[in-house]
């Protein structure tokens, strides 16, 4: 077990270094960005718990903590279930480890260490604000503190147990369908729809919760004893605390035991006929240029990889969903805009900002160099220049991003009643920004490539190039927003002209980056 843990830790540390070198700069960047994201989440949860702290005034402290626990587990499960599935069942060293005299339980537990850290982060992100807020208003006793610590540990174990169980279900489902990537994307979209529904109705839900505290408390106390016990455990009730810790620990142990018992079968299930074998088909050859062939290959990679598609494709879905949402809530939007009459001329800027935010999160090109992985020799041994390879990857990114961004901007412009020029400029900026994000993603991935990944979560979710592309492009987006505001308010230029100037600047920036990619980038790729 010690050896397995050491390997997992070494793997984690190695992945934080750039290309196995001693430089920890890229790892520090990733940690810094993660901390930033975590702080943003804390602000949201502080706001949420400050509305529900009213339960404590009603003497329902336990309900406050019970809800905190419920939300923490739900948040952790949502955040970790896909990573759990890929880390446990899709890791490339599963077969190697299973072929050795190592019990499946130890393999599972060693992977669980990394997962518990992630799940713990999600769980504590919700619980810490709740505890801190309670401590500030009502004070802390030693017993309560012990209750908080032990229940947090229990909840982390429970959340991980749920992730493992759901991860197993997800793995079984994915093993039986042909296009797993599309299925994962649909699954993710459904979760997001549920998430956005809760998010948009959060205030209403929270208000209703706060107003009906007593009824909810009675219902929970009667029907959902574990939730009641959790709440009591956090108020310092020793018996409840022991029950919860035992319950959560038992759930975790049971799930681990069940997974370990079926681990070999589950991991080898795909090769053992878990997937329908393809029938012999004719070769439907369609001759393409090398550029198109590479672009087509990249597209196939994108559409067949669940991790790649769900992580980078969600942004595309958001971009497509924005105009649909705008059409559905058109009347409310127009009411809101009527209240913003003084700043109406710069509303197209907000459209561009919203779209740019979504475009930044869809940096499809950012992991594409790393995703070559051990197959890098294929493209490097073929008579194709680094320039064509990179343009092929960029072409794929643009084929997906640019049309949907342009259409989204046009529809949004129409829905909120922007002028024809503003709408066209908004669409132009969206297209240019999509191009910019594509190029920046490739440049950053060339600077920080990683070919040693065990599963695709590495380059897609845990790489510095993806994080830096997303947040770097956010920064650029805000910079252009600042330029727009400066030109409009300080220089007094008409909003349409400001948009046009921003478009011109963005065009120049994108073109400059494109030249960098096709010259420096090509040489860099050829030296990989």
């Amino acid at each position, binding site marked *: 077990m010690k050896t397995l843990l050491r390997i997992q830790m070494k793997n984690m540390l190695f992945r934080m270094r750039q290309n196995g070198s001693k430089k920890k700069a890229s790892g520090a960047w990733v940690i810094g960005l993660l901390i930033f994201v975590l702080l943003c989440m804390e602000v949201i949860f502080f706001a949420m718990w400050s509305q529900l702290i009213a339960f404590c005034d009603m003497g329902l402290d336990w309900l406050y903590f019970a809800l905190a626990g419920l939300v923490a587990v739900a948040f952790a499960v949502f955040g970790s279930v896909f990573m759990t599935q890929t880390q446990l069942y899709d890791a490339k060293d599963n077969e190697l480890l299973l072929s050795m005299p190592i019990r499946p339980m130890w393999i599972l537990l060693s992977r669980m260490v990394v997962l518990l850290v992630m799940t713990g982060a999600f769980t504590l992100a919700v619980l810490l604000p709740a505890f801190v807020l309670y401590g500030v208003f009502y004070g802390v006793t030693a017993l309560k503190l012990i209750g908080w610590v032990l229940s947090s540990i229990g909840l982390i174990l429970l959340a991980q147990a749920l992730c493992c169980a759901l991860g197993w279900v997800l793995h079984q489902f994915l093993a039986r369908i042909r296009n797993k990537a599309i299925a994962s994307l649909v699954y993710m979209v459904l979760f997001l729809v549920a998430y956005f529904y809760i998010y948009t109705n959060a205030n209403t839900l929270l208000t209703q919760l706060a107003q009906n505290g007593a009824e909810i408390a009675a219902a929970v106390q009667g029907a959902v004893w574990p939730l009641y016990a959790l709440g009591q455990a956090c108020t310092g009730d020793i018996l409840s605390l022991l029950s919860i810790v035992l319950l959560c620990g038992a759930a975790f142990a049971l799930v681990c035991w069940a997974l370990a018992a079926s681990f070999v079968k589950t991991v080898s299930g795909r*090769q053992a006929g878990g*997937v329908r*074998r*393809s*029938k*012999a*088909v*004719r*070769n*439907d*050859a*369609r*001759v*393409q*240029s*090398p550029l*198109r*062939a*590479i672009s*087509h*290959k990249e597209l*196939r*990679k994108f559409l*067949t*990889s669940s991790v790649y598609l769900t992580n980078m494709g969600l942004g595309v879905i958001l971009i497509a969903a924005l105009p649909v949402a705008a059409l559905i809530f058109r009347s409310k939007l127009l009411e809101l805009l009527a209240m913003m009459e003084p700043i109406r001329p710069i509303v197209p800027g907000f459209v561009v900002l919203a779209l740019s935010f979504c475009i930044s999160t869809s940096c499809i090109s950012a992991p594409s160099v790393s995703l070559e*992985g*051990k*197959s890098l*020799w*294929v493209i*490097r*041994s*073929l*008579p*194709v*220049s680094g320039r064509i390879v990179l343009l092929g990857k960029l072409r794929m990114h643009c084929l997906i991003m640019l049309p949907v961004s342009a259409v989204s901007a046009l529809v949004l412009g129409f829905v909120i009643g922007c002028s024809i020029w503003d709408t066209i400029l908004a669409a132009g900026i969206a297209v240019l920004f999509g191009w910019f994000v594509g190029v920046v993603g490739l440049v950053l991935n060339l600077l920080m490539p990683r070919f040693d990944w065990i599963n695709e979560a590495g380059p897609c979710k845990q790489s510095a190039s993806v994080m830096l592309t997303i947040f770097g492009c956010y920064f650029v987006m805000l910079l252009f927003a600042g330029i727009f505001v400066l030109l409009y308010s300080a220089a007094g230029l008409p909003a349409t002209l400001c948009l046009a100037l921003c478009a011109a600047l963005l065009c120049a920036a994108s073109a400059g980056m494109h030249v960098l990619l096709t010259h420096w980038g090509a040489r860099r790729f*050829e*030296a990989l």
Partner: protein
Amino acid sequence: MLNIQNLTKRYGSKTAVDNLSLSLEAGEICAFIGHNGAGKTTTLKACCGLLTPDSGEITIDGMSIREKPIECKRVMAYIPDNPDMYEFLTGYEYLNFVADVYGVSKADREARIQELGTLLGITDALGGAISECSHGMKQKIAIIAALIHKPKLILMDEPFVGLDPVAAHQLKNLMAEHCAAGGAIFFSTHVLEVAEKLCNKVAIIKNGKLIAYGPMDEVRGDSSLETVFLELEEEKA
């Protein structure tokens, strides 16, 4: 066809290939043998342009791999020891992708894929995802991909690993036909019997240095290649 002059490649403080020189003409098959870690893969990758040598020059058909990598790659093909290909593609998709890059016409590629697929017994499996193929099947796909554009020079790193006896036999025939038609092959192998029967040249490398090189008959002399190889390995130890 292939000319390696004073090739040296270092990884940090370790010299993987040390001042290696050899050449191959059209019609020659050269076996490249040596112990594990001797520098065979490094040499082959350098010839293919996958690694940049620290010093030395490699020319393919008179063109420098350093100065004209694309032109060199057009006339050669490389099959690695571990064919990690695009697992998300089907066999046909992968072969078409390679054919597109080489600019092989539709008629030619279909004929080649059909011909080689039948020869290697893999036609039925080409419609399936590469991820579902065994190592041997992936090796066969890699071989077809390498031969689809009829290269002049073929570089192979342990090509017989994972092949069933029928496929191995067919590959040997293909190699012989390729060289008879004016091509050249430079491949590494641990199967010395195959090297003896198939090759007209042999190069033996040890710890990055070429310790024997020349026509098979001269290097082998009156004994077997295995005997010569083992003696040389002991001598230089």
